């Protein structure tokens, strides 16, 4: 029990001391880190629960089930809080698709998300899809879930009340996933194929049908106020759920292993206590309510079994029969709270200076306009291959579907309808990460990632209100990895503090290493934004014939850098140099400016400039709208592909051009009129021409060629 509870995965023993530096307070925060999910007050009596997690290691071993159970686990974290899960996002990172094994992993992961998420009835509304060689042996499969609840349904994962019963809801307990958190999630991969294949039984197997019934039964129990506290069973199974609920409530618990319904006979008590069989919840119920609880569960065809009793001793006792042998007797809080808190050695990587000194200015430039156009087209990839496999429309909430800067949803769910207000309210969600930026400078890179995520929700007209993070790093026993982690946390804290965005939850995934090589540091953030009046016609990445193409934010040579850019990585195999600087004060002003322009519909197209730089942003606006544009001069390829923060392209109807300029100048944000939308070609005077047809064929073909869609 201690081995699983004090594992890296459950105890955060390498990262805890660093995570304390993140800002977690804010006026809208109802629940911060430490519970199953963060909860934000959205007003109108509605709260939003949000959490992100990784399922990297299980997905590397068994892609379909690894990804599927990742979805199942994060959904349980949300309805545990009393929230109806309404949206999933999946930031995914794989090795290059040219390799057959990487394709097998990517295909399996996407099918797993589709198979589980669709059947369990929670729409998947966005995410990321990135390919880079550092993920070949260790893919990153992160998953974010967001749920809505009436504020008064909020419930916590804690036990209390002597004599109250611990009722296990849902699936039977089997041998799947034993040691998942310790064997898998807290250890690195090697190239010993047999040894890795032998870990497959450590991966759990998901049953979305069981989980769907469990969601409905749990929400009904909470609606009827039949439970005192409730906790999902995830990593470390019953050991975690019983010790955490007892510890949080300051009480003890007796657990009878013989009472636990088993999937097969002959499980040892330690297996029952550490099994990670999916689709199970532990509800703390008053004895008088047991019959009502059983009745609700019977209707939903969900198993409900009393497996424990709350005591006042503060001890977790594992019994074989209520009056039988005492198999374990430990202080509940020691499992939950007394895990080691390591201060692991940190060291700035010796190779970093050399990498920073490797200026991308030395790279061979594209030699002709046609080569430049070819480079640009090659950087386009339509992620629809993945997201068309996900139900992204359920609950009639999805106003902006996957493929734009952020997903935009109505703030509404079955049983959670906004009160009176005349305006439809909404929320925007974005997930973002950039391993290249973070490899060059984890602190500045993470600042840029937070800034970009906030800008993505601003482009949807939303005000960013909370962030969750999934910190994917290598082996914490490597001092360089600990340095990267610490720097990234500092960068996140700086950006979040400056932008006024609290961190309400997170997950740390370490040991992302194969054959002794760590992944590039990949902090992924999930951003929640709120929209006060959601109306049809939310601007998306698009050109409109006759509308002006305006760049908001810094322009010119200092604004961007080829260091860590997609062009340098994918066209020249280069990663080096210094990132462009981020002015957080300017960025905060830009966020408010863009959200306002979008809300007032002063723009008819909008797109954040991020990886791939100005060139890719322009080309994406063309392929998504089927309309080209004609721009004045851009200095050269470095300005076209260079990447830098706080830059947004907007398409402005001529009638609003003066207003947009005025607003920008009031906000102290530079605005540059680049040209005009129209035609079927992206034309940059004197630099390049890329036809819509060529761009479309490259955009659509990039992944479908690898993953044969139809």
């Amino acid at each position, binding site marked *: 029990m201690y081995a699983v509870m004090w594992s890296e995965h459950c105890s955060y023993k390498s990262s805890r001391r660093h995570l304390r530096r993140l800002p977690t307070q804010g006026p809208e925060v109802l629940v911060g880190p430490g519970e199953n999910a963060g909860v934000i007050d959205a007003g109108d009596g509605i709260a939003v629960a949000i959490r992100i997690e990784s399922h990297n290691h299980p997905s590397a071993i068994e892609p379909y089930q690894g990804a599927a159970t990742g979805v199942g686990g994060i959904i349980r974290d949300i309805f545990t809080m009393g929230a109806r899960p309404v949206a999933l996002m999946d930031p995914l990172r794989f090795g290059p698709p040219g390799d057959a094994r990487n394709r097998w992993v990517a295909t399996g992961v996407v*099918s797993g998300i*589709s*198979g589980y998420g*669709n*059947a369990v*009835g929670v729409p998947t509304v966005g995410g990321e899809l990135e390919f880079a060689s550092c993920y070949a042996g260790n893919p990153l499969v992160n998953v974010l879930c967001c749920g809505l609840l009436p504020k008064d349904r909020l419930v916590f994962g804690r036990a209390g009340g002597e004599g109250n019963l611990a009722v296990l809801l849902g699936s039977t307990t089997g041998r799947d996933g034993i040691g998942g958190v310790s064997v898998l999630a807290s250890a690195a991969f090697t190239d010993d194929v047999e040894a890795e294949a032998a870990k497959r039984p450590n991966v759990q197997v998901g*049953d*979305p*049908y*069981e989980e*769907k*019934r469990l969601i409905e039964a749990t929400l009904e129990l909470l609606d009827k106020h039949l439970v005192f506290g409730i906790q999902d069973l995830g990593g470390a199974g019953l050991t975690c759920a019983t010790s955490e609920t007892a510890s949080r409530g300051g009480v003890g618990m007796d657990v009878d292993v013989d009472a636990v319904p088993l999937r097969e006979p002959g499980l040892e008590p330690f297996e029952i206590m550490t099994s990670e069989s999916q689709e199970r919840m532990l509800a703390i119920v008053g004895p008088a309510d047991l019959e009502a609880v059983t009745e609700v569960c019977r*209707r*939903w*065809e969900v198993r409900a079994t009393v497996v424990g009793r709350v005591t006042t001793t503060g001890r977790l006792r594992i019994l074989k029969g209520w009056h039988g042998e005492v198999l374990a007797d430990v202080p509940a809080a020691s499992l939950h709270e007394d895990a080691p808190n390591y201060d692991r050695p940190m060291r700035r990587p010796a190779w970093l200076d050399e990498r920073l000194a490797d200026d991308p200015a030395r790279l061979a430039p594209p030699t002709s306009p046609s080569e430049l156009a070819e480079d640009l087209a090659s950087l386009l990839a339509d992620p629809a291959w993945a*997201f*068309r*496999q*996900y*139900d*992204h*429309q*359920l*609950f*009639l909430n*999805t*106003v902006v579907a996957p493929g734009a800067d952020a997903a935009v949803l*109505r703030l509404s769910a*079955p049983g959670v309808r906004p009160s009176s207000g005349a305006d*439809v309210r909404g929320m925007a969600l974005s997930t973002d990460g950039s391993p290249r930026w973070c490899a060059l400078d984890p602190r500045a890179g993470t600042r840029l990632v937070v800034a970009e995520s906030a800008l993505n929700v601003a482009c949807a007209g939303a005000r960013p209100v909370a962030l969750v993070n999934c910190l994917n790093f290598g082996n914490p026993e490597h001092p360089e990895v600990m340095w990267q982690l610490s720097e990234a946390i500092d960068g996140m804290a700086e950006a979040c503090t400056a932008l006024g965005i609290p961190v309400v939850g997170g997950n740390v995934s370490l040991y992302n290493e194969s054959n002794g090589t760590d992944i590039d540091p990949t902090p992924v953030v999930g951003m929640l934004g709120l929209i006060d009046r*959601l*109306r*049809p016609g939310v601007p998306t990445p698009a050109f409109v014939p006759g509308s002006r193409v305006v760049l908001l934010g810094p322009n010119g040579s200092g604004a961007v850098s080829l260091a860590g850019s997609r062009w340098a990585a994918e066209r020249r195999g280069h990663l080096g140099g210094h990132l462009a600087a981020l002015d957080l004060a300017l960025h905060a002003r830009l966020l408010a400016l863009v959200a306002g322009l979008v809300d007032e519909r002063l723009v008819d197209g909008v797109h954040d400039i991020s990886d791939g730089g100005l060139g890719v942003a322009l080309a994406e606006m063309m392929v998504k709208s089927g309309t080209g544009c004609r721009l004045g001069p851009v200095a050269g390829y470095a300005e076209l592909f260079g990447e830098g923060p706080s830059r947004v392209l907007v398409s402005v109807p001529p009638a609003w051009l003066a207003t947009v300029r005025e607003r920008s100048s009031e906000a102290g944000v530079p605005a540059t009129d680049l040209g005009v939308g129209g035609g079927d070609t992206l034309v940059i005077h004197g630099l390049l021409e890329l036809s819509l047809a060529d761009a479309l064929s490259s955009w659509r073909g990039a992944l479908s060629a690898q993953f044969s*869609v*139809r």
Partner: protein
Amino acid sequence: MAQRAGVVVFPGTNCEHDVVEAFARLGVPAELVWHGARSLSGFDVVVLPGGFAHGDYLRPGAIARFSPVMSAVADFAAAGGPVVGICNGFQVLTEARLLPGALQKNKGLTFVCQVTELEVASDRSALTAGVEVGRRLRVPINHFEGNFTAAPEVLRALEDEGRVVLRYLDNPNGSAHDIAGVCNGLGNVVGLMPHPERATSELLGSTDGLVLLGALLASAGAPPAMVPA
């Protein structure tokens, strides 16, 4: 007069609330009916919504057809009551033999969620009565098993009798004859793979689903009263 709509819920169904919301938009209250129900009396129209009834285990609809409510659905249909199966509901109706044919895995062997363009192919069904044949509608699909197939003579009969209700303009799943929806001989039992409830507000990008659901409520006797979105 269609005053009450019944929306059947199997364990694993997930589009029931969306259908209720869409009907509310048309001014008709809808009630959820648990799959254990043995009667549908009092309802003017019955919808089997989308989802994964009984987890789609074995095969979509294969277990749901044995749920007690399905005898009530058969009786309701035999009495001429309008029954519409959307997506998983369509699959259940074919398994229950209330509609011909079967829905196999999509040609591309993946789940597909996207907006499709449909053409109304017949107005001889409860879902399309009064809708102009040839009218084009933008309605999303969301399924893995939506590839309609039937024996050649069945397909011929469906065509000859005007029982192909909706067709895809750009076939997304390999369906025979581009079929997106069919009806029974009387026209009162209709199955379609696209989700009309997902195209019921400007905010969602299309209101074309209201054309179909409105026609359904009208054909059940009540002229639909539009409630402003």
